[in-house]
């Protein structure tokens, strides 16, 4: 069984700065990590390989330092890695990212499952996985808590609030994995050493046979108008005391005082 895992390299900070022109993240000088949720996706793929055999390929689009994330994934035990790096890919929104990844999937050709993390901690759109499934015309099974392969079909236990759903689809299919599922393993030391002996091919637009205007910022239908940090409003906090009815009455009175009611 051949599995492809899509990963994203994200900044390892909670506060980031933005390029006001493009609305893109400024990554310079900020340490990067594999998007935490994507590590769950890698772990899911490794466990499926351990049960069903086959090969796990990890793929990532990003600047040249994305190689670091791919090496880390190899260190966790994936078999091979593919890097998508070119200046034409820069500034991609979720659509352009899914388009580029989709072309790469077509180039890879043979796969049974594509697994993604549910969402990235920087953008938090949770769109790339589903968009990639749409682009490739694959069944999509999102928010997976558990994955198993039975009789050439994939079954996913999905958590939706208080509901658990059991989904089944023919393969190939695309799955997105929840943060709580498949806690990533500690990269074994011998696999880390092997990871640095492996070659990582770098694919560029010419390798993907795509439409140039669909790549990167020019191919992105989402245009960020403005990125800003909301201003915090400072003021005094007044605690209303008493029983529920009394406090409600006082609260209504305060709202009237301020002409809110």
């Amino acid at each position: 069984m051949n599995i492809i895992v899509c990963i994203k390299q994200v900044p390892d900070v909670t506060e980031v700065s933005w390029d006001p022109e493009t609305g893109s993240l400024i990554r310079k000088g900020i340490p990067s990590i594999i998007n935490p949720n994507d590590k769950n996706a890698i772990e899911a793929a490794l466990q499926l390989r351990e049960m069903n055999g086959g090969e796990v390929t990890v793929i990532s689009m990003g600047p040249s330092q994305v190689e670091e994330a791919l090496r880390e994934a190899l260190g966790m035990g994936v078999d091979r890695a593919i890097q998508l790096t070119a200046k034409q890919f820069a500034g991609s929104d979720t659509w352009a990212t899914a388009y580029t990844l989709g072309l790469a999937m077509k180039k890879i050709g043979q796969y049974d499952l594509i697994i993604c993390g549910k969402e990235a901690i920087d953008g938090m759109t949770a769109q790339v996985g589903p968009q990639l499934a749409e682009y490739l015309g694959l069944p999509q099974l999102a928010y997976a808590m558990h994955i198993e392969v039975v009789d050439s079909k994939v079954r996913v236990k999905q958590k939706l609030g208080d509901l658990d759903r059991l989904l089944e689809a023919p393969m190939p299919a695309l799955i997105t994995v929840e943060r709580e599922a498949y806690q990533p393993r500690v990269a074994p030391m011998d696999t880390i050493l092997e990871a640095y002996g492996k070659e990582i091919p770098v694919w560029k637009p010419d390798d993907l046979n795509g439409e140039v205007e669909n790549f990167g910022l020019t191919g992105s239908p989402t245009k960020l108008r403005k990125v800003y940090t909301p201003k915090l409003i400072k003021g005094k906090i007044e605690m209303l005391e008493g029983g529920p009815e009394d406090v409600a009455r006082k609260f209504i009175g305060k709202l009237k005082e301020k002409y809110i009611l």
Partner: protein
Amino acid sequence: MDFNLSPESKMMVKAAKDFCEKEIGPIIDEIIEKDDYPDDLLLSFAKARMLGLNIPKEYGGVGTTNLNTILITEELGKTGSVCAYPMLMNNSTAETIDYWGSEDVKKEFLPPLCDGSAYASTAFTEPGTGSDPRALTTTAVPDGSDFIVNGTKRYITGGNKKGYGVFYFKDEALKGEKGDVTAFIVDKSSEGYTTSAPWNLMGLEGMNCVDVFLNDVRVPGSSILGERGNGFKILLRWIAGERIQQAAYMVGLGQAALDESVKYLGERVVGGKPMGFMQGFQWMLAEMKGRLEACRYLTYRAACLQDEGNAIDIDSSELKVFVIPAIQEITRMALQIHGSYGYSKEYKVERLFRYAAHAGVVASSSEINKTIAGSALLKSRR
């Protein structure tokens, strides 16, 4: 010597940090409370391939450098606990077996030490001796192709855990000769092998350090490590490597003490400002950091010397003479910075301070290392 760590070294350190957070952090308190570590801890180390780090792959090891091993050990030291002891003991014992053992010995004993199915021990110390081979009283008497061993070994880490230990005995057949100590690999489940309850040691709760009682234990001659009569030489080489490993662990511990201090000084408020604004504390931090970096690079240097195939007996002694008191002082300063909280078991620095205290007497005392390093200087003048 290149002070820039390779990307794979950095990733190994990252993996070791990840291991500490996932596998060690959640069980530290339980280990201290129960004064025992869980049996599957060694298997967790094996799964992360942290056993047999510098053992060749053909015997089940990872085959990496001493420097990488030291970097991983440093990360484990930041936990300031005995949790890494089973791993450290397996690695140093396996390295000794790999260096001195015959092909058959390596094939038999290295794989279980690398896959976590056996806990290693090293047993030289006895109730009446810690460093003097002439004072050993445990004996090995030939009996056909086997040996019968008798006596008591003291402070044997993991002596009560299943697996193998390198034991040093007076070889009775060599009595009167210059070298009469022979190293044997003893199966800790042998008939006649029993242990005491663990010693209650300051800062080392859960280390499983026991006395071992050997009562007519039969050990096959095929379990002899190296040449007969060469035991003390084997011990000295093992203990030199142990000193570097210990220094790395202590560097990690010192880093943890510094990190805790920086955090505390940034959070504790005095006169409306974080306490770190006071110059006196800034000076303390600067001293701690300077000493720590010196210890770190001396330790890396010693590991690089090992990787280059140099003898490290003198250098590792010099390392111990410098590193151990420096780190002990760093933990003392960390405790002082924390004031009364530093004495509370709720705060990590209390554990770091107690843990650091053992390093001056374990893996040969600081004083004996001064003698080794100092006398070497005088010998070099002759």
